[in-house]
């Protein structure tokens, strides 16, 4: 890897994540209050949404937007099938748990995406504004695939209306698309007045949020009993495979290097906000101790510390080829 990868590891964003991990490993009581963490999470979604919308207001809509959206939706639908097969055959997970885990890997992690855009910007590969819309549309399809895989051949459970509301109208999707639209309507002039909050504050808030994520990820890993070595291995192999495929697909449909890398990161990332909530409703028998630990404590740290760097390298190599 080139020297920028090291620059990444000395960026405050990553260092705060590592600090959180260390604090949890030392069993320090360090904890960011739940309300603050939730507020920061909403803030990050709104800020990334608006910035994406403003960027698209400047660049305009073109064919690439539609093809990126199409590939994103398709990937979110399909990734769970591959993940399901791997989880069943290699990790010997039962159907219900395999379906639930698979849903997480098809869907996306907003914070992984956000961290990737910051890193890619520093490496000179800025991500196109419309990739935020791709992020938003990739949240949901995987949930449908995952529920289908987990429930196939089983009696239907209740929780109907509640579940579909959670699937299609969860706060992440509403906020991302809503702020994207607001950014698009308001444009650069409208954005100027709120820029100190949504752009000036962005990276600092990301640091604080990653501190909390580091604590949560490490604490969960230490408490985990249900995650086997094979599952840990898959938690690293799946993002590698999905990330490479996503980057390839992005390059193939003609995205610039930064956006192709971002698509790779979206495919590689696993959800730990929207999908777990939906799985509690749709597949309550599935064990959160498996799907949360894999997405939050294995795949998320892997992507933040290693995965994004590898994908950036691949995207640059492909675009240079």
């Amino acid at each position, binding site marked *: 890897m080139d020297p920028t990868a090291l620059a990444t590891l000395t960026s405050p964003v990553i260092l705060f994540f590592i600090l959180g991990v260390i604090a949890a490993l030392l069993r320090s009581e360090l*904890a960011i*209050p*739940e309300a603050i*963490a*939730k507020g920061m*999470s909403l803030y990050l979604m709104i800020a990334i949404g608006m910035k994406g919308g403003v960027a698209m207001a400047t660049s305009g809509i073109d064919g690439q937007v539609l093809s990126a959206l199409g590939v994103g939706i398709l990937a979110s639908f399909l990734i769970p099938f591959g993940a399901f097969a791997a989880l069943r055959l290699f990790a010997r997970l039962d159907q219900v748990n395999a379906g639930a885990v698979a849903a997480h890997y098809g869907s996306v992690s907003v914070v992984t995406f956000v961290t990737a855009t910051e890193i890619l910007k520093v490496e000179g590969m800025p991500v196109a504004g419309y990739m935020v819309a791709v992020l938003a549309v990739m949240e949901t399809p995987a949930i449908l695939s995952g529920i289908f895989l987990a429930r196939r051949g089983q009696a239907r459970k209740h*929780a109907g209306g*509640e579940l579909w509301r*959670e699937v299609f109208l969860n706060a992440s999707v509403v906020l991302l698309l809503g702020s994207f639209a607001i950014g698009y309507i308001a444009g650069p002039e409208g954005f100027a007045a709120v820029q100190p909050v949504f752009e000036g504050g962005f990276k600092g808030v990301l640091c604080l949020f990653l501190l*909390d*994520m580091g604590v*949560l990820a490490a*604490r*969960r890993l230490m*408490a*985990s*009993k249900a995650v086997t070595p094979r599952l840990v291995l898959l938690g690293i192999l799946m993002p590698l495979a999905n990330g490479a495929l996503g980057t390839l697909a992005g390059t193939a449909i003609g995205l610039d290097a930064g956006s192709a890398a971002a698509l790779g990161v979206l495919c590689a990332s696993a959800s*730990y*906000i929207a999908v*777990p*909530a*939906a799985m*509690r*409703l749709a597949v*309550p*028998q599935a*064990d*959160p*101790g498996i799907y*949360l630990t894999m997405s*939050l404590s294995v795949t998320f740290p892997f992507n933040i510390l290693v995965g994004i760097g590898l994908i950036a390298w691949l995207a640059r190599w492909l675009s240079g080829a």
Partner: protein
Amino acid sequence: MIETVIRKRIEILADTPLVRLITATIDAAGITGWSVLPVTSGKGRDGLWKEEWVTGSDKSLIQAISSQEKATRLAEALAQMLTSHGLLLTMWDVEVIRGERF
């Protein structure tokens, strides 16, 4: 002296994403109301958790007061969910004033 009557107090501990599902079941049992309290941390067979809002695995405590009859109806309606959704239900007799409300 003030008049009190005996009613059931039911408390259900559940994952926060399940709250709407459970309150819908309470409504369906004909109980007039409920309240939800936050829970900060806990430990069960699944191990320890703490302020894990981000993953939706934090818990809430749902309280409801009702007649014995409706309480039983609610317990029956929730019975299957108790194991599958990992709910914790306790209930006991309490004295209430203005008991005709419940």
